[in-house]
């Protein structure tokens, strides 16, 4: 953030565009120069450094750019008073001496007073003059300077003027691909209000504040500026804001997106983004994954709309089309809980498991949350009730689907069809087809286990095998090749349907012999 008077921005019709620094050319040169100026200023007084900066200002096109960079660099300086005595104490002595002796109107009279203070303190005249106002900002010494990379400085500058522009924002909306958890926690902390609308595949989040309802207000601009670094720190993002013009009469549009501006603007690095305590979530993820249930666990899967609001569940557990969300409600403040419960009450059409810290049990009225699956935990989220829930979910789904496909008549053309393919055709799970198999009719096909085979195709294979068997022996391996050459799949199941048996003599399929339905295997 930079002071408002250093904001550089252009208006184009009803749009406003900050004067972003290019990360090269003369901007980069200037940035390097100023950094050098600061590096060389170690030991100098602030006002001496200021003189050099104003020289630099003289020949640059926009002095605000120089001052903006200098403001950022000031924050990287450590300033120190030069003197060892306390200027406040020294001043008291001087003013007292002057008041007692009478106001000095000539240089000589002044010297007498300073000499008296010199005698009292043991400091020499120079030391006194030096320490007199040695604690003023301008008199402080640059003691340390943490020089940034010039490109980084320019990116910080671009972030800085964007934030400064947002000071005057009346509302802001954005879409992001990442960092939801952090962004929403900050929206809350900053006292902003948001509403969410779905736009294509994205959620468009609009933020303003409680009193924005009554009139155009810049009150929340600073909070929006503080939110900005969290929005632009990860993934792809797009921001739109309404900026109140200096006269307060017009609204200007401001737009920013990751493809065009991501490179120019510094967001927060991973280290700078505050991380939240999530050991309970961590533990759960590790133990769930180690079970290898076949369900996929997704952490922080993104927002789940609840009316105008969103929930940000901790986990999504999915398998095929099945989606179960898990929200872990830890031991938080009462306000947080009340808000969370209000949202949870509004969750509909979503399978949500809510794991509640046992210490909160008394505060959570389970009646209002009947539609959700509530489990309690202490220290660790138990896996068993969650797995039971998932199994039940799978079973219920199967039964429901099976009901919907009972009595279906299906027309197939392929010679061999597996049950998975049937499930695909009906748009249900294989499990459901299995349950309903007796009640699905597929004319002209026979079913064996998970396989459906066309009757005419079976006859063709049977004839082929019969004709081979009358003349010679047929090994299992040969039978498989024969079936496959006719376009069949799953040869052993087909042989089983046709009533052939296989006599195994070891594990070599070439030594395994096919025997006819009514014949004994040939001896020797």
């Amino acid at each position, binding site marked *: 953030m930079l002071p408002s008077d250093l904001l550089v921005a252009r208006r184009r019709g009803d749009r406003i565009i900050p004067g972003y620094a290019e990360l090269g050319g003369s901007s980069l040169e200037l940035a390097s120069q100023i950094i050098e100026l600061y590096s060389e200023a170690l030991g100098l007084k602030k006002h001496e450094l200021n003189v050099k900066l104003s020289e630099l200002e003289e020949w640059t096109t*926009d002095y605000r750019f120089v001052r903006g960079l200098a403001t950022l660099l000031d924050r990287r300086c450590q300033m120190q008073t030069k003197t060892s005595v306390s200027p*406040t104490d020294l001043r008291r002595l001087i003013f007292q001496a002057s008041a007692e002796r009478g106001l000095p109107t000539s240089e000589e009279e002044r010297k007498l007073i300073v000499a008296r203070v010199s005698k009292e303190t043991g400091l020499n005249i120079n030391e006194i003059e030096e320490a007199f106002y040695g604690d003023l900002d301008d008199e402080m010494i640059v003691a340390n300077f943490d020089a940034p990379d010039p490109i980084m400085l320019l990116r910080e500058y671009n972030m800085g003027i964007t934030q400064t522009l947002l000071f005057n924002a009346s509302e802001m909306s954005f879409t992001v691909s990442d960092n939801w958890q952090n962004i929403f926690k900050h929206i809350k902390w900053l006292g902003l209000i948001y509403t969410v609308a779905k736009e294509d595949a994205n959620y468009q989040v609009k933020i303003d504040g409680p009193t924005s309802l009554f009139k155009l207000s810049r009150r929340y601009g600073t909070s929006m500026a503080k939110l900005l670094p969290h929005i632009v720190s990860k993934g792809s993002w797009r921001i739109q804001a309404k900026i109140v013009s200096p006269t307060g009469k017009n609204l200007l549009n401001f737009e920013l997106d990751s493809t065009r501006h991501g490179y120019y603007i510094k967001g927060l690095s991973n280290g700078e983004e505050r991380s939240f305590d999530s050991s309970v979530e961590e533990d759960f993820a590790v133990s769930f994954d180690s079970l290898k249930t076949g369900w996929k666990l997704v952490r922080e899967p993104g927002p789940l709309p609840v009316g105008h609001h969103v929930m940000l569940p901790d986990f999504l557990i999915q398998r095929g089309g099945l989606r179960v969300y898990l929200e872990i409600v830890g031991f938080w403040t009462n306000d947080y809980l009340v808000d969370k419960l209000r949202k949870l009450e509004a969750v509909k059409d979503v399978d949500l498991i809510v794991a509640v810290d046992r210490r909160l049990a008394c505060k959570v009225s389970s009646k209002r949350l009947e539609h959700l699956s509530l489990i309690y935990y202490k220290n660790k989220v138990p896996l068993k009730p969650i797995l039971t829930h998932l199994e039940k979910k799978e079973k219920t789904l199967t039964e429901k689907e099976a009901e919907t496909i009972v009595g279906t008549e299906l027309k197939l053309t392929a010679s061999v069809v597996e049950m998975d393919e049937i499930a695909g055709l009906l748009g249900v799970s294989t499990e459901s087809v299995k349950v309903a198999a007796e009640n699905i009719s597929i004319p002209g096909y026979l079913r064996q286990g998970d396989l459906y085979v066309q009757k005419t195709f079976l006859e063709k294979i049977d004839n082929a095998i019969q004709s081979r068997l009358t003349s010679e022996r047929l090994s299992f391996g040969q039978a498989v090749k024969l079936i496959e050459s006719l376009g069949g799949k799953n040869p052993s199941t087909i042989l089983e349907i046709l009533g052939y048996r296989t006599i195994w003599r070891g594990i070599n399929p070439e030594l395994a012999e096919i025997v006819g339905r009514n014949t004994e295997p040939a001896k020797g």
Partner: protein
Amino acid sequence: MNNLSYDKGSITIRGETGTPYGKWDPRIGAYRAMALDYHEIRMYLDRSQIPYRDDTPNIPAMPVLHSQIRLRSYQREALSAWLRAGRRGVIVLPTGSGKTHIALQAIQTLNETTLIVVPTVDLVDQWRRQLVDQFSIDVGILGGGEEDIKPITVSTYDSACLRAEQLGNRFMFIVFDEVHHLPAPTYSQIAEMYIAPFRMGLTATYEREDGAHRDLPRLMGGKVYELEVDQLIGHHLSNYSYEKVLIELKPQEQEDYDREYSTFTNYLKRNGITMRSATDFQRFIMRTGRDTDARKALVARNKALRIFFNSESKIEALGSYLKKFSGERSLVFTRYNELVYNISRRFLIPAITHQTPKEERREILERFRKGAYNAIVTSQVLDEGIDVPEASVGFILGGSGSSREYVQRLGRILRKKEGKEAKLFEFIAKETVETRISQRRHR
């Protein structure tokens, strides 16, 4: 049943009934109203016999206040006018007429949790002291890095505004000292986001140049009492004299001034710019961002102004005046901090600017009151309300063209003291635009 509750500077109304003050807020699915309307909403619901539950105020326990305040006749009149007006509105009295006492009496009469909002950290300190002296209670402080909320708390405008979301439902009574600050876009939010039904404004200068004082009736009630300086002079306030001291710049100064100032005026002429109002100047400032010549013209103008504000001739003249009045207590006002420190170093008199540490500032004022120091030099920080009745001589070495500033500075040395004859001197450089700035001040 309707439910009123406080939500970050506003009031939410949940339930079947709306009120004429609320607005439907689709974001939360409830009615929302400005905290400013709290009192009206309650009155409306009561009058209409609509049942409701009110969770809005979050009021700490209030001690019973005792004190021995003696009001002067006009102070009593002012207070009762305010009470009659429904415990709302602005009292306009000249600086030095004891507005603080009226507020203290009002605080005791209402005996409600109170927030006192003042423009500067110095005033926070001054009010706190008076409240402690008067009521012998702990007083909360908000501002200048402190945040300690008590049933009676003193805050700066800045902090009261910044913390409105959190504090807006903690006080039933708000006193705005120097209330002419309130009707500005930012500070008016204090009036809008706090629920306090009882509101008192105090000022010597009700009218604002931008006309924004017309919003005061909505924010806190309009003018309920007014007395002008002339009505109190001699009786309750000191007599004063004003003298303009014309200073001739040193030849080198005059030469530098003429050169720099003509760079500025030449630029204006070349570009056909006229400067008649603050907006004209604002427009010119905007130009400086993209036009290097405009920037140079501005730099030259600022240099020229600095020459007469900081003129050596003026400093010399000040020296001899200070010497002449060394038996009295003097205040010196300048426009820039730079000059404050020059004068402080040159004449070895204490300085107060926004950079002066709080403790030291307190100490300087204390010693000045007691007579250990007889002069203070300051820029604009002492413009308002700081109580230094001992001061009897004022020197203006350069200020803005605002007439309010002039009145306020005059007020510093008009504090009532027996037999005091106050004197105000304004040092103006001849042959410069300063003569014009000064005229604007006395308009």
